[in-house]
């Protein structure tokens, strides 16, 4: 079985950290970093877990919301996935080569891959997914795939992508969440968003869609003709829709579900689950997303455009408090605009001024913002992020810590719809925001700081920060195919941004994955619970 061997080889690479000494079939468990003794994979069993909020549809591309990614990655797969240090690993692509000029990418596909309706998956499906499906649907993929000059299939199991210009982070665009491979014979020539098959998604993943009772559950069963012999191990995966966070915690506590992920469990509930003997809490698996949370600042609002004001706000905030008291030790204090888990992070360049309210007050005095009789220098508005309890607490902490240096913060609440609209319309003074970095600053960091991306739309440079030097550095990094050149540009950008603080970065987010100790292999890659679960098993 040559195919199995190759997969096993890929796993060896993955396992190198923790499992170097163990060879042979043991590796198929892919328990890359687990500290528990190896358990032999076992067939059978139903995994019941939670999904919240309920996704609108389960086709990646048509919708790319967090919950959609969690559930749909069991049904759809990408060409590759990523190790914790963001090296590409095979999934539907068995191997790949990149030409020396960085312009030709050749993917060899796995053999015997079938869609759930029995159609074989070939290079045509891959090319369709990249060049048409995601090109039309995904605002994230479009500008990058637009750089593909030509996509060809020399044979049914080979895809060649010819780029206009070299693009170093290109390989980070091929996991299921960025570019899921969808069946051409179902989608080509139709309106992708309204295709009736969206209600009954068909992919190549280890689990096939069975039933979705809205507001109740999504049920998937083992795909018997899955391309890796013997996998998947689980018979069924069931996602229960449980909207209330305390009900979710209860479901986990009583064993009615065996797995929770993402924001299922509020951070303040995590300590008690750490203490529950049958459960394991894992924090790895978010390296690809690497979400960075920050105080979103609208530079058009006076006096927030003043660099001294932003520096003072930065020093007024205690990031240790945020991590330890609000997030209960989950995540990591931010050190700059690039997460420590993202490529080209430079610990030497990314240095923020430490927490020092006295110095912050002095800086404001110096800049001419004197306190009035009540001790108030000026008042700013703040719109909390409407994504749950912990974000409200963060905004309350922000108000308290700014009050200490004489800045009055008025909270104005908005629900998710109003929040997105107001951020997109630049109709805010300060807020909280978090963005994914997708492994490379060009993919996920640049967009928030370059002046060419100041747009009336969420997740652009909505704050309106302008610095020609920063524009130049990010352009250099985007256009160069030399990692060293890119590193130099990113390092300098990190240094400048840490000085100018276009946003006040707070926390590198991680989300707890909590599971029954009987469930093995949940977190094996940087995709965390957004992976296909083909080798997850209950034993």
């Amino acid at each position, binding site marked *: 079985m040559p195919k199995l061997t190759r997969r096993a080889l890929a796993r060896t690479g993955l396992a190198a950290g923790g499992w170097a000494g163990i060879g042979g079939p043991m590796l198929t468990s892919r328990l890359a970093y687990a500290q528990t003794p190896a358990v032999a994979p076992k067939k059978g069993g139903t995994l019941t877990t939670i999904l919240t909020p309920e996704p609108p549809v389960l086709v990646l591309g048509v919708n790319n919301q967090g919950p959609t990614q969690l559930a749909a990655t069991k049904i759809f797969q990408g060409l590759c996935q990523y190790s914790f240090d963001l090296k590409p690993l095979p999934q539907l692509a068995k191997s790949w080569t990149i030409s020396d000029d960085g312009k030709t990418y050749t993917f060899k596909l796995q053999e015997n891959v079938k869609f759930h309706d029995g159609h074989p998956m070939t290079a045509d499906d891959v090319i369709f997914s990249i060049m048409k499906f995601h090109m039309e649907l995904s605002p994230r993929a479009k500008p990058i795939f637009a750089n593909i000059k030509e996509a060809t299939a020399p044979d049914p199991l080979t895809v060649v992508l010819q780029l206009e210009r070299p693009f170093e982070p290109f390989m980070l665009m091929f996991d299921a969440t960025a570019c899921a491979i969808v069946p051409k014979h179902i989608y080509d020539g139709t309106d992708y*968003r309204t295709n009736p098959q969206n209600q009954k998604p068909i992919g190549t993943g280890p689990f096939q869609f069975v039933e979705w009772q809205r507001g109740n559950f999504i049920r998937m069963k083992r795909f018997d003709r899955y391309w890796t012999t013997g996998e998947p191990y689980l018979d069924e995966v069931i996602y229960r829709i*449980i909207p209330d966070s305390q009900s979710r915690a209860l479901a986990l506590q009583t064993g009615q579900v065996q797995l929770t992920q993402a924001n299922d469990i509020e951070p303040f509930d995590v300590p008690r689950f750490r203490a529950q003997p049958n459960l394991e809490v894992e924090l790895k698996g978010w390296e690809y997303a690497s979400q960075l949370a920050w105080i979103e600042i609208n530079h058009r609002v006076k006096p927030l455009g003043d660099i001294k004001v932003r520096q003072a706000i930065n020093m007024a905030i205690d990031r240790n408090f945020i991590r330890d008291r609000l997030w209960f030790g989950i995540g990591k204090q931010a050190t700059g605009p690039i997460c420590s888990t993202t490529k080209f992070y430079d610990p030497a360049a990314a240095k923020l001024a430490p927490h020092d309210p006295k110095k912050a007050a002095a800086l404001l005095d110096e800049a001419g913002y004197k306190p009035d009789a009540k001790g108030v220098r000026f008042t700013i508005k703040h719109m909390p992020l409407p994504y749950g309890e912990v974000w409200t607490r963060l905004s309350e902490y922000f108000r308290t810590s700014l009050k200490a240096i004489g800045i009055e913060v008025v909270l104005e609440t908005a629900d*998710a*719809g109003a929040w*997105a609209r107001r951020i997109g319309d630049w109709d805010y003074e300060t807020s909280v925001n978090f963005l994914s970095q997708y492994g490379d600053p060009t993919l996920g960091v640049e967009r928030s700081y370059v002046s060419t991306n100041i747009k009336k739309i969420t997740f652009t440079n909505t704050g309106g920060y302008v610095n020609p030097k920063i524009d130049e550095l990010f352009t250099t990094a985007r256009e160069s195919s030399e990692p060293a050149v890119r590193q130099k540009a990113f390092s300098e950008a990190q240094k400048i941004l840490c000085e100018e603080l276009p946003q006040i970065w707070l926390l590198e987010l991680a989300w707890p994955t909590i599971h029954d100790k009987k469930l093995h292999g949940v977190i094996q890659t940087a995709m965390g619970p957004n992976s296909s679960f083909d080798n997850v098993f209950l034993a």
Partner: protein
Amino acid sequence: MGGAPLFRFVLQRALKMVVMVFAIITANFLLVHAAPGDPASVMAGEAGAADPQFMAQLRAQFGLDKPLSTQLWLYLGHVAQGDLGMSYRQQRPVAGLIMERLSATLILTGSAFVIAIFGGIALGALAARKVGRFSETLITILALGLYATPIFWVGLMLVLIFSVWLDWLPSFGMNTVGADLTGFAAAVDTLHYLLLPALTLGLFYMAVYARLTRAAMLEVASQDFVRTARAKGVPEGRVQRHHILRNALLPVITVAGIQAGQLIGGSILVETVFAWPGIGRLAFDALLARDYQILLGVFLVTSVLVLVFNLITDLLYAWIDPRVEVM
């Protein structure tokens, strides 16, 4: 009351209801669109990245680029033809989505209603009979306690006792997924899941009815015709049931009529705590996503139900108390 006047009454009411429903739709439409944000901005927010063409494309696809008055006119036209439109996010017909969820809500609120009415009237009647005795005090305290306790807290306590400590009943959901039960077994399974949410929702209203029934029965019991009945030698049980309870029921029915309408919309909290896939949560999720079509559809269906319940209440009056005439 005869057949013809009753028919005329119902017909008149039905005509009024149609006018009212369209007025309600218009008001709802304007209200829903007054909230800041629209489905396109929510979807862009969820996508984690967006560009202006993408947003414009979405808005055009949903018809949100047209003037509000045109949108309203189109919507009214579609509703008149029985078409509630498509959900923006789910790309499925709204009528189907609502029907899927309506039955779950009706099962929940219907059971809660039955628990509340029968439990409440029985407890109230018992309390009225045993005035001054220990059992009356007990019922009064219980009713007051349930009436004063927040509904979600009752839910959490029931879950704590029956799911966590005793492990008898599941704490969320509507059925066992993957068991593939049918017929009687499926009904028993759902009943298993139904018990806690129905009790939670029903206990509050049960307290209301118990207090109401007790007060009304005590008032009626002191009236002359009751004394006359007793003097005639009518057995006590019959006096209680026929003379007192029946006359005491009118205020209970009035309140029940109003609450039957509220039960549809008022179950959101219970649906959320128990992850019950009902219409309340459908509406709530749609509100957050600015899925106007679903929201308007749910409002429409619930307002029709409220109007129907009001009609039934009026008809019930006449049946319970022949002195009331339908006009």
